[in-house]
């Protein structure tokens, strides 16, 4: 049977001491609009789109558990890369919208993207007063590319060099 440790001073006095000591220490809060906290590199703040990498393969839209990605595209002919090569057909994006009102920030779209067109950015200041304004188009998603950080190094003992 565990015995409760005997309190040193009466608990009432000890409690007063705790609050008084805390009062003399500084605050831990951040005065938000004036100063900002930097979220860690991996923070899943917002999804940024690198439009030129996207091939309109629809994988992200299909894998999204919330069905919150809307993609439309069209195809264009491009001149061949090499002399005498075949004419290329490329798929171009017309529309790439993410409805952040629905998004659950799971990151499945970023993971399944085979061409590295989607990235996580720690950016978090994009709240809107109207829920419909949370549907962001590809221009807006493209702007966030600037805020995407470099991936950070891994902890000691991690297996580097992905297969």
């Amino acid at each position, binding site marked *: 049977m*565990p015995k409760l440790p005997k309190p040193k001073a009466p608990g009432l006095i000890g*409690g007063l001491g*705790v609050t008084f000591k805390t009062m003399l220490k500084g605050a831990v809060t951040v005065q938000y609009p004036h100063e900002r906290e930097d979220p860690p590199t991996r923070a899943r703040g917002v999804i940024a789109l690198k439009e030129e990498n996207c091939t309109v393969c629809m994988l992200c839209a299909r894998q999204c558990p919330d069905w919150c990605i809307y993609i439309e595209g069209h195809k264009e002919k491009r001149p061949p890369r090499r002399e005498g090569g075949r004419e290329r057909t490329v798929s171009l994006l017309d529309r790439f919208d993410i409805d952040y009102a629905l998004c*659950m920030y799971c990151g*499945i779209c970023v993971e399944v993207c085979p061409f590295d067109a989607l990235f996580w950015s720690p950016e978090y200041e994009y709240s809107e007063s109207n829920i419909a304004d949370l549907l962001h188009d590809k221009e807006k998603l493209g702007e966030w590319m600037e805020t995407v950080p470099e991936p950070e190094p891994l*902890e000691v003992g991690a*297996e580097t060099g992905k297969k």
Partner: protein
Amino acid sequence: MSVDFAVDRQAWRHLADAQVNVELDTGDMILNLGPQHPATHGTLRLVVRLDGERVVSADPVIGYMHRGYEKLTEFRTYPQVTTLINRIDWLSSFANEVPFMHGAELLMGIEAPPRAQYIRTILTELSRIATFMLFLGEMGLQVGALTPPFYGFRDREHVLNLIEAATGGRFHPNFNRIGGLKDDLPWGWVNECRNTMKVVFDACNILEELVAENEIFGARTRSIGIIPPEVGTGYGVSGSNLRASGVDWDLRRDGKPYLVYPELDFKVWTHPDGDSYARYWVRLQETREAARMVVQMLDRIPTGPIMAKVPRIIKVPEGEVWVETENPLGQMAYYVISKGATGPFRVKIRSASFSNVSILPWLLRGVYVPDVITILGSLYFILGDIDR
């Protein structure tokens, strides 16, 4: 103490009346605690029939947050389900992911590499610390102290920062994958974690001094809401709530081995009293124990991969599996039935708070209104965990 298991039919009739919330000419007063009430931390409604300030009968009305996860899982693939189950108990989301992933891995015959197992265990214990830290503060608020919750939030923040640094999400890590983890830990995380554990120990001491040792807190919680062990088990109360009733049962030690718990040296805390104070005390000790376990594990993380070899398209073979883990709130378990598709056929989500709260009608009979709040607070439920 004698316990009557037989259901009091008279009381049930009262409860049925209370449900309709029609004031009958009985002289009792029906008080609706919730669904919007500061004490229910979430949308739990408690229809309480009062005689003066004494509770004659209480009927919890749940479902205000019902999101139908068991149905939704049938329409999701296995990787997509993780996103959902994160949100069952949103204070310890990481711990929710583990049993489901473990179940899917069992069905597929995959085992996560040791490094992944270690990191999973560390993050599970961190989420336990985060959950309990909030409880330790918030319990103060439930009995009227304004300051402890801020200390709880303040020191939990360090733990959440750790979780965020590793997984990218403060609340919804979505970090587990079938066969391992999404990523390895970032550089310097282990040291950071070690420092944070010191903060956790300090925070436990502070909260113990401020709350647990306070005589007023003792007067408010001791011998309030006593759950006898046999009643607790009958209702399916689990976790710290049951251990506070003296039942020495912790799935980390007693269940089927999962993660790296068999390799760890830890103590399962119990308290003989079964009252609200015991529940607070047990959680306080378990927070410390969890921090100790994290420190143990930090020294032992093996090197190696974090992902087992997993086919690209995850199809889980036919079968049924029952995986239970000791989550911060109690026994969290999934009964996964697979039919060989990319998604589960049926998932029974056994969440801890649901059963923990189902004891309320029994427990609240005859207590005073302020004690209702104490008991609600000390049972410590998360609405998402009740309603799923």
